[in-house]
């Protein structure tokens, strides 16, 4: 549908490149996606762990995000079980962080002089990470294009200094910029549509998430990850490998949830177990050299 209108705006990959260049120019490390399946960019250790402790940290990266229960077999215009987030993490939050952000949306072609940009209250909380923050969703002409959060707590630990986390939902943003109503119509580059890249994956993974994923295996994955995480945090602690196991447990839980085999009461208990792992990893991280970094000079 409506192929003619898709000629407008940046191609999907150009949108990413533009954001990469923009945030690189602001002094951010440009990191790569984390190589584990996770529900949101916030799970990337570059956010979760680096948000803690006194050491300054400025990073930006794309993170593929998996939300098994959002799968729609490729039939919904904008719901996906796999999508991309663009995440910027700035610690401490610079005083002009809102201006920096507005610069990024100018860079991708949304001119605040002809659009209506608003910061609308939306606080963020992740029960699985024991994390919470205050902030806004940013609206462009009534469309939510970004989540903007000042972290107050991660892994149950107070953040000091406080960092700013900026998360762009890339598909949604691209749909707005390109004036496209069906995500698969997005122009990925000059030759490819988003659908050509991902439609089959959405169909197959929806079937996997909802029908085929072996729940016994997944329950075992969850237990194994939990056990390994605990082991890595006893004796000589290995915070980073332990945190990998926490991510794996979280994803196994998300798949089990999508399979509908976790009851309402069990759900809270599972979330609590992942949170306990995340908290333990965060505490361990603070004891590591990078977590507890103290400036050597001055």
């Amino acid at each position, binding site marked *: 549908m409506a192929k003619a209108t898709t000629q407008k705006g940046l191609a999907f990959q150009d949108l990413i490149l533009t954001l990469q260049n923009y945030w690189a120019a602001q002094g951010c490390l440009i990191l790569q996606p984390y190589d584990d399946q996770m529900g949101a960019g916030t799970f990337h250790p570059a956010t979760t762990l680096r948000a803690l402790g006194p050491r300054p940290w400025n990073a930006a990266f794309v993170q593929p995000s998996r939300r098994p229960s959002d799968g729609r077999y490729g039939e919904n*215009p904008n719901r996906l079980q796999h999508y991309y987030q663009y995440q910027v993490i700035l610690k401490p939050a610079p005083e002009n962080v809102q201006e920096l952000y507005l610069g990024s949306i100018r860079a991708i072609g949304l001119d605040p002089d002809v659009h209506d940009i608003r910061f609308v209250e939306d606080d963020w909380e992740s029960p699985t990470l024991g994390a919470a923050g205050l902030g806004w969703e940013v609206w462009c002409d009534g469309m939510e294009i970004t989540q903007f959060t000042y972290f107050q707590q991660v892994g149950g630990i107070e953040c000091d200094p406080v960092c700013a986390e900026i998360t762009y939902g890339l598909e949604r943003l691209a749909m707005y910029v390109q004036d496209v109503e069906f995500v698969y119509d997005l122009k990925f580059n000059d030759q490819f549509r988003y659908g050509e890249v991902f439609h089959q994956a959405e169909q197959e993974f929806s079937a996997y998430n909802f029908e085929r994923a072996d729940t016994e295996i997944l329950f075992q994955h969850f237990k194994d990850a939990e056990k390994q995480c605990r082991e890595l945090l006893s004796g000589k602690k290995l915070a980073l490998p332990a945190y990998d196991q926490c991510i794996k447990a979280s994803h196994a839980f998300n798949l089990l949830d999508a399979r509908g085999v976790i009851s309402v009461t069990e759900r809270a208990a599972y979330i609590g177990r992942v949170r306990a792992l995340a908290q333990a990893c965060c505490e361990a991280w603070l004891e590591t050299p990078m977590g507890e970094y103290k400036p050597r000079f001055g």
Partner: protein
Amino acid sequence: MPDLLLELFSEEIPARMQAGAARDLERLMVGALTDRGYLFDGAKAFAGPRRLTLAIAGLPAKQKDVREELKGPKTDAPQAAIDGFLKKTGLTRDQLRIEKTPKGDVYMAVIERAGRDTPHVLAEIIPEVMAKLPWPKSMRWKPGSPVRWVRPLHSILCTFDGELVPFSFAGISSGLHTRGHRFLSEGKIEAKRFDDYAQKLKAAHVVLEAEERSAIIFEGVKQAAFVHGLEMIPDEGLLAEVSGLAEWPVVYIGTIQDEFMDVPAEILQTSMRTHQKYFSLREPQTSKNMPGRMANRFALVANMIARDGGKEIVAGNERVLRARLSDAKFFWDEDRKTRLAARVEKLKGIVFHAKLGTQFERVERIEKLAGEIAHLIGADVEMAKRAAHLCKADLTSGVVGEFPELQGVMGRYYALHDEENADVADAIRDHYKPVGPSDAVPTEKVAIAVALADKLDALTGFFAAGEKPTGSGDPFALRRAALGVIRIILENKLPVRLVSLYFEAAPGRHPTMKGAILSNLQEMIFRSSLRIHKNEGAFPADLGSKIVSDGITLLLFFIERLKVILKDKGIRHDLIDAVFGVGYEDNLVRLVARVEALQAFLKSDDGANLLAGYKRAANILKVEEKKDAKTFISEVSEIHLTEPAEKALFAALAKAKAAITPLLQKEDFAAAMQQMAALRVPVDAFFDGVKVNADDRQVRENRLNLLASLRATLHQVADFGKIEG
């Protein structure tokens, strides 16, 4: 006199918190200044998306001087006591004065504190006030500092009499500058006085006052709608919210695509309001009782005068709305593929409350109860049961999943689609009513039966589960449910008794609780509740019956709510107690009629004087009954009446009694009290001309019996002894 100007400029403040923050800032500053002896002409606070502003007019340039005299120890007191006094006052011994008192010489300290310059005082109190400002939710943002604000604070502007008041908060030094609109202005603005400040802000596209922003939006939407031959659907809550989302509100009109216009208006409206904060528009009213049809236009409020006249903004918003409404329409289309009746079974999967089972079980209870109530109030029993059976089924629909506030409304649509009876469909919608003090109660009998059943089931269930509201929390909205029950009964004048309804609804009723046993239990609940309510007795310790003790707790809860309702209607609480005082009356309609008649009666001269006469009689009786250690209840003996005034009172009482009894039976309380009014003259004459405590024992007792007869007559309507004044 000089003025104070204070502006606290931050990143975007949540709309819902702005008005409260302005009030708190004003309250705390006014409090801090009055505590320090200041008087001033006026204070006004303003709040908007990025700033809190406070202007105080006519604030003196200097604090008042304070002179304080403190009495110290005697001059011959131990040294330690004198040292302590010196330490406390900060004076030396030769600065103390000695004063002679009858008890000996004592030291006096005179402390004079010169008033400080106001800017110094302000510089001290403003940071304190800022630290105390109670945001519903606030955050840290300064590295290494526990200081909190709603979002990062950027600047503080503070002047007194046009001069900077220097202080700092959160590492930010106060200054003379602020900023205008985020996109429609550039650079810093200097302001030293309020008028100048407000003007410069307006030039920089910031409307300071929320009321003004709200008026601009209201007028803007109205005008824009008018241009399209439409009118705005009023929405106070939305208006307040969007007033907090724009410093420079600009109204634009967008179009809803035709394909969505056959979706029920409530869905469109709710989707537009909750997700997008748009105003819905409608066609002008054509007839008196039918509001105009929902229009295919909406009004949006932007914070921007766009360079292109708003073309992009409108197009963007229309696009977003299209996606939103596609979702809503999808749910609406899908929902109608399943009959409401087929959804009831799915309620087994929805837990209502861990202790009260699933929604399915709840519906079973409501269905039974609605049938009983329908029987009591003369509604069609089968229809009431049908409506109750279906009343929660829409909870499993997609639309209600997306917009929980449309529960009931959607049930009605689906019922009509399934060709259920129209009264049944209306009852499904109306059984949640009233949802608040300003909401109407259902008036159709089928709806009344289901509405009462729904609320009574929740009340009895939660009370039995030990989940009654506490002082701080009412998570299941049981106060609202009880108020709803009372209003439905009163406004529809339903001849039902509260305690009987309780037994219909209460869980755990034993099969033997019927007939006389049930009546006794009912009366016991009523009487125990009243005794506890009047602080005349404690909660019965061991009733051995949970249904009875829960009933007492619940009835007490109802009595409190009833008093709230009557108080709102301007009825005195002592009159309610007076009517409660005379016996078992849990028919609310009768109870309130009685209270209202009593209040009207007491406002008349006859009523006020009769009350005075009653009090005199009651006081005499109280004293004499105590003296004689007996209660006077015997018949008045006519032959022992000697004085004309007592004969007249006796005759008047006989006449009044004869007239009052049938009137009370007819529940005509106003007329009954009219009859009582006739007693006023003979009562006054009695006290003027007759000495109650006559020397003759028989005459005295007879007169006391006469007064007791007066007391008893009045008590038929209310316990006048409970009336104050």
